[in-house]
């Protein structure tokens, strides 16, 4: 019904906002899929997820903006994009770094709490502590000031229906779609991906099937963090700047997408991200653009009021 309503509004909406919304949605989607996987398998709300995104953006900045130029490898731009080759090198490095960080934090903190059998809310609480510490660490290393990735081009594409998009949007969408497809393949084709879904379904049966929960959890963190790091880099490209609070601010659309899609469902999170992303951008046609996060929040409350388990969650 909600979808029909949104579709009905479509003729009155500026297409460029919809396009922008889809780009934003692909970033939200990357973050939300990771978040919902962690939610489904570890049963915890990872409040630090936004800060994993931040970390991803900063690590990429370090490689693309500091280390690679310092090594003298002048990249130059790639076609019309604002960034150069260094970013393409930096992205996988950033993914690896954030994934390693996430696994280490799990070993050091969450695993101990799990073994003690504490309430899941307390584990989420611990992730709040991790979020705070991580942000402090980021500020300590990179300072709290606004930073920018090196910018090589300022082109804008003009498309029909008065749509103007920076070429970067295409890049963001392509990377996001590729990663979502990769995630889908991992979850549906690889043994570990299936084991992750199996563990989310029924942890005890997974155990007696010989699936090591410990390893599943480790890979969940690797995937979730990798997606978060990518989302962070793409967000940095999208908003053309990097600040320590960018990830924390992004938590609202992330969780809104997860909750809309039904906790634990990767496909639901993706659909939720589309709705949230487009709503956020399109809302700016009528309201002050800085209220975008509030629009996402309001939509989430509205949906929870009507469908407490999300749009795509189980009915019972």
């Amino acid at each position: 019904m909600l979808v029909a309503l949104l579709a009905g509004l479509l003729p009155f909406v500026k297409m460029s906002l919809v396009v922008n919304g889809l780009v934003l949605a692909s970033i939200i989607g990357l973050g939300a899929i990771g978040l919902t996987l962690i939610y489904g398998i570890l049963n915890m709300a990872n409040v630090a997820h936004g800060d994993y995104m931040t970390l991803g953006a900063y690590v990429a900045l370090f490689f693309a903006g500091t280390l690679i130029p310092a090594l003298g490898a002048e990249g130059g731009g790639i076609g019309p994009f604002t960034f150069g080759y260094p970013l393409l090198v930096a992205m996988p490095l950033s993914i690896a770094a954030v994934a390693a960080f996430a696994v280490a934090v799990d070993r050091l903190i969450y695993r101990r709490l799990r073994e003690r059998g504490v309430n899941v809310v307390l584990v989420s609480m611990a992730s709040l502590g991790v979020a705070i510490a991580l942000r402090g660490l980021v500020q300590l290393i990179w300072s709290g000031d606004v930073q920018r990735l090196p910018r090589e081009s300022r082109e804008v594409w003009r498309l029909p229906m008065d749509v103007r998009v920076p070429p970067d949007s295409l890049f963001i969408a392509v990377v996001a779609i590729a990663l979502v497809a990769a995630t889908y393949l991992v979850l549906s084709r690889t043994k570990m991906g299936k084991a992750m879904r199996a563990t989310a379904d029924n942890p005890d049966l997974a155990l007696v099937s010989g699936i090591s929960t410990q390893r599943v959890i480790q890979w969940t963190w690797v995937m979730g963090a990798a997606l978060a790091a990518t989302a962070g880099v793409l967000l940095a490209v999208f908003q053309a700047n990097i600040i320590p609070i960018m990830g924390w601010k992004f938590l609202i659309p992330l969780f809104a997408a997860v909750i809309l899609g039904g906790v634990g469902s990767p496909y639901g999170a993706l659909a939720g991200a589309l709705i949230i992303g487009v709503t956020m951008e399109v809302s700016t046609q009528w309201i002050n653009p800085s209220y975008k996060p509030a629009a996402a929040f309001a939509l989430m409350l509205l949906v929870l009021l009507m469908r407490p388990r999300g749009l795509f969650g189980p009915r019972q």
Partner: protein
Amino acid sequence: MALLEASEVVAGYGETEVLHGVSVVVDEGEVVTIIGPNGCGKSTLMKAVVGLVRVRSGGVAFRGAPIEGLPPERIVRTGLCYVPQTNNVFPSLTIRENLEMGAFVREGDYRTRMDEMFALFPDLTRQPNRRAGSLSGGQRQMLAIARALMLDPVLLLLDEPSAGLAPAMVSTVFERIREVNRAGVAVLLVEQNAWEALRMSDRGYLLVAGESRLEAAGRELLDDPDVARLYLGGRAT
């Protein structure tokens, strides 16, 4: 040497001790059934053997090696697979994926084994990509058994495979279990449906209140007048 030897197993949940020293032996290729009234600890014994419930004292040996205290994912690698009574499939995974999960620790190719399973359980063959959550009770039970068999175990532990099934389905399930056993797999069965189960068993144990009361050949246990009395109250002699 016995295949499985549980001796004087004491186990329970939290503060509650359910098993007060139960001993059960299964030999190669045997079907052994444990019967007993509700709450006597049959399921707990199963869970203790596979490592889901901690064994507080006593021992469990499989093929001569002690396995008590090992985590479940290690125990299944020794060739001992378990089918829980309820929640025994992964509902959001397809039939094929459920079977793959059964073969999780298997090295190398498991496709031949999967084909064997589809041959053994023809009900599952028709729609291998159907989600397990949408199967009927009987089909789920077949899938659950097939999942456990994917590892080619020497011993299969089945917790009440007939529970909640329609009578016609019950005999089909038992027929399949017999076929599994004919293929050389020893089966340890916990059953409410004592009559059907004991008929196909080599031996049976009667468990009452966390203690083994009687051990006998399957049919003898069946004919023991004490059994009915123990089930429905009254005093055993």
